[in-house]
């Protein structure tokens, strides 16, 4: 087993463990922290693929900005420990088996596809390429997305200000 594979499995295990813990934790802050672990592990996986720019952005945007807001809001609302509920009969008899089926289908297809996959050639100047794609080929969708986000932001502000 190469060192790369060892690191991959360690990070993958960390990501899965974080995701499981995210669901099982009963306190919102602990769940948020688990989600941060998942994101950090994903950033490590990107690094392993030599996509340093994506890894750094993953940390800066998801772990450093979005999750900070999550934690901030949980702290501000002073949310407490959540109650556990029994599974509804709908979830027990339809949800759980369907999840199992989905898992099997996904595993089958990923296993079949990854056999045919080859490693992409390593490229220098990853950041450069991302920038070219973003601002030349996909400039219009990219700008449209930012306008969409701006609209959502304004909408949220309007809704928040309505009461006062």
């Amino acid at each position, binding site marked *: 087993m190469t060192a790369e594979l060892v690191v991959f499995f360690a990070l993958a295990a960390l990501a899965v463990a974080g995701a499981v813990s995210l669901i099982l934790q009963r306190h919102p802050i602990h769940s948020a922290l688990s989600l941060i672990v998942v994101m950090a592990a994903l950033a490590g996986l990107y690094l392993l693929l030599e996509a*340093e*720019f994506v890894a*750094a952005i993953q940390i800066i945007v998801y772990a*450093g900005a979005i999750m900070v807001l999550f*934690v901030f809001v949980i702290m501000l609302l002073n949310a407490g420990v959540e109650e556990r509920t029994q599974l509804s009969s709908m979830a027990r008899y339809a949800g759980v088996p369907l999840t199992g089926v989905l898992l099997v289908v996904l595993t089958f297809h990923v296993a079949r596809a990854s056999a045919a996959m080859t490693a992409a050639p390593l490229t220098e100047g990853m950041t450069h390429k991302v920038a070219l794609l973003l601002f030349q080929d996909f400039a219009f969708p990219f700008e449209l997305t930012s306008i969409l986000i701006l609209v959502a932001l304004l909408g949220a502000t309007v809704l928040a200000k309505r009461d006062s």
Partner: protein
Amino acid sequence: MNELAAQHPIIVVGLVKIAVLLFVLLTVLAYLVWFERKVSAHIQSRVGPYRVGPHGLLQPLADALKFLTKEDPTPAGADRFVYFLAPLLTMGLGICAVAVVPFGPGTIRIFGQSTPLVVADVNIGLLIIFALTSLGVYGVALAGWSSDSKYSLLGGLRSSAQMVSYELSLTLSVVGVVLLAGTFSLREIIMAQSGTTWGFLPRWNLFSPTAPQVLGFFCYFIAAVAETNRLPFDLAEAEGELVAGFHTEYAAFKFGMFFVGEYAGMVTVSFLAVILFFGGWLSPLPTGPHMAWAIYLPAAALGLAGLSLIADAVRYWNISGRITLSMMGLALGAIGILCTREGVRELVQGPFWFLLKVFVVLFVYVWVRWTLPRFRYDQLMAIGWKVLLPASLANVVITSLLVVARS
């Protein structure tokens, strides 16, 4: 050891470099506290630490011992895991960032392997530092939340709002530098600043002939002071209103870890300021045949420092101080003489200028803290969103226009 290093060059050499850097960094951080106390004392016409060792030089050691031996209670309502995690995060993230800082252009040999003066020479060094600083918020926020105390929670909430607000300006303020250099690699950003304008003015980004980053530096420095929660932006602590803010409930070594984290953040931000705006390890002096003597400047500076220490030792009031200070002076002089040697003198140029500039930035940092009063919370938010953010955005627009126009 040499064979092992030849088989696994990255691991062995990397570990050695990490160990050396960690040791030096932690010592420097401890003495930064001493330095801050001394400077603040002299600003306020006091003498500062003076009892433990000559000129209080052993004070950091005494402080560390005190942190280790004090009682370390955990508040009854605290969330134990997060309560332990918060100081660890603050210290760990603060120290990690220094790994990507390049200290000089030269290479050294460790176990026969030639290696540059940086632990991790990555081509996204700048982004890594920002990633680590952006995670630094968690230390403060989680400490405030997990302590189960209203002062801590208020401090944590305030500072997470503050750090999120100022992070935007911090990141935007360096975009101008990235536009000028065209890279995220700290090494290449420094190399892009070499040379002089009109034969004497160094082409540091601050005085860049294409687009001087004066506004960028202004925004960077203010945002950096706020990001590291230092006066005049230390709303997270605000001892007048919040006892000690987010670390009210922390004692002993966990409190010490917050301390280390805060000063590590300060050092990282100063490293970055020097790399981005003041040419990193580049000498401020013009080069040329008539400037050949400049290569002896590090040796001369160390020698002079040694001499002044010895001169001070002669007048010191107690015997042990006289002995210690003169020994330190001799050691500095010996290092100075070593720096005149062939090979060594080229190697020390980069680190000498780099650390000298960092020292100046750190001094300004401390100076600001002990000169300006604290902002009110609403003023803090107004500065961040209404002044700093538009100013750094303007800097991005102006710089990109100038770069396009002049290239």
